[in-house]
């Protein structure tokens, strides 16, 4: 009798038994799977579209002169963006000299000593600085250095602005990797009678080396593409200049100036400069990603 009942029972688990309500549930499920996949595909397509476009438009501009010569006045064919490349390197170098020590020092303080109210404040402040729009940082440095202390636009002012942008990135990444260094290393060193400061410098930092480098490179990749704060501080320059206390060209600013000009040749140069910028920034991020992936340390 029981056997009978089970054979008579309707099919429970097959798709054939599904109708009405169940069918529409499955339809919705399929639809959403498609929609969600489309979202990801759209994001990927967007990046590829932008990248390919920059490469196609930018590649024709690239030649030897583009890397070695200065921009020519409108109407003259040729010239390059060498001052902007040099300017970016100088500004970034100076920014790193200021921002990296502060960032690493803050990270060491937070990871090795930080507790209590001051550390909480510093962490909170780091988050706040990270959230300040870069244009506001630019306005700050513009109001402080350009209009008051120095009195005119300068590469140095640009460096200060970029340094402020770099600090939170360096601090967060480095603090995170320092925390990943196992305490047993510190204890082993301290137990040998090595003072704490030497332990940090000789044991902790070298252990976390790749993560620290990652933080620095990552911050430079982010800051190197910033335009708005440089526009307000370094301003740009058509000529070669190695004086950080004079207006200085930088790649992102050069791209902007070329792009909004009315000349086709300059537009091409804007794409060329964009291609250089994207290659440098992309390469830096690629390196940091490889390093972090290899060691399992550092940022995301």
């Amino acid at each position: 009798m029981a056997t009978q009942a089970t054979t008579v029972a309707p099919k429970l688990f097959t798709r054939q038994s599904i109708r009405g309500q169940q069918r529409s549930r499955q339809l919705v499920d399929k639809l959403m799977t498609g929609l969600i996949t489309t979202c990801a595909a759209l994001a990927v397509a967007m990046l590829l579209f932008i990248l390919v476009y920059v490469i196609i438009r930018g590649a024709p501009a690239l030649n030897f002169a583009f890397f070695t010569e200065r921009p020519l006045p409108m109407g003259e064919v040729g010239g390059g963006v060498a001052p902007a490349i040099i300017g970016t390197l100088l500004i970034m170098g100076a920014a790193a000299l200021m921002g990296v020590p502060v960032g690493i020092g803050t990270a060491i303080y937070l990871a090795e000593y930080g507790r209590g109210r001051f550390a909480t404040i510093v962490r909170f402040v780091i988050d706040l600085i990270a959230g300040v729009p870069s244009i506001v940082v630019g306005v700050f440095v513009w109001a402080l250095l350009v209009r008051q202390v120095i009195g005119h636009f300068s590469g140095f002012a640009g460096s200060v602005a970029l340094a402020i942008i770099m600090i939170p990135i360096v601090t967060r990444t480095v603090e995170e990797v320092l925390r990943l260094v196992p305490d047993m290393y510190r204890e082993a060193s301290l137990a040998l009678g090595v003072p704490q400061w030497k332990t940090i410098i000789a044991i902790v930092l070298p252990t976390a080396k790749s993560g620290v480098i990652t933080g620095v490179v990552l911050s430079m990749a982010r800051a190197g593409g910033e335009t708005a704060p440089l526009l307000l501080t370094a301003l740009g320059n058509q000529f070669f200049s190695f004086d950080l206390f004079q207006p200085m060209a930088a790649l992102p600013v050069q791209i902007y100036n070329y792009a909004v000009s009315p000349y086709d040749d300059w537009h091409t140069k804007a794409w060329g400069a964009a291609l250089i910028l994207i290659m440098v920034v992309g390469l830096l991020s690629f390196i940091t990603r490889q390093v972090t992936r290899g060691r399992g340390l550092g940022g995301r």
Partner: protein
Amino acid sequence: MRNARYTKANMMGEEIRPIMVTVRESEETLEAPSAPAVTVEHLNAYYGTFRALNDVSLEIRARSVTAVIGPSGCGKSTLVRCINRMHEVAPGASASGRVLVSGEDIYAPDSDPVQVRRHIGMVFQKPNPFPMMSVWQNVVAGLRLEGISDKKRLEEVAERSLRKAALWDEVKDKLHMSGAALSGGQQQRLCIARAIAMEPEVLLMDEPCSALDPVATIKIEDLIRELRESFTIIIVTHNMQQAARVSDRTAFMLMDEERAGQLIEYGSTAQIFTNPQDKRTEGYITGRFG
């Protein structure tokens, strides 16, 4: 339609129960009176290329409690997760063989895992009420998925399920609080109520007491004995006393040389615990390993 089927099943239950009692007393002399509720045939389960279950076959009787015991890593959780096709949710997991529930192969090509799970309830190791839903919403979550929105009917089902799960008296005034606000034992009984609200053919329990304190454990065990009247229950446990206390039949599993789970012995709980046929079962029962 479903309700009609259930009325029938309940009627059958009424008739079978006296027989079942005698069966439990003199298991070996009598043939099983009813078709098995779950039949597992040559089941192999894999995680990627690793084989977790090695050719497991067993028949689970309807309206009884079957315990699956064995040392950790022996595949007992994998076995029950294969019975409602939860196993394949894990990335890279797959299974082969046949699992018949009410005579139907849930791994048949035209079988739909969502339908399988709808008919086979599961209670997990850690209580997992949905924290963003109230107690009440937790109980009827499955019915609402099916598009049932008649509030009166949902309330009826919720009360009936909570009563069956021996939770009604404790939560009837807290029905609109978050499911996560209950104690651990209450959360687990809420999860049981959530599973039986679907009126499943089979109720799977994967170490349902391992995260609970002894008092909550006793309550769940009492509950399991009561639920046997209406459901076919398969419970995984690492606690032999628990298996002895709540189950009618016990399956003992062990890893083979390649770390795949194997069924070693399966019989009435009384027989497994008092007169194991296999040396390995005896070793485990008497605490020589595991």
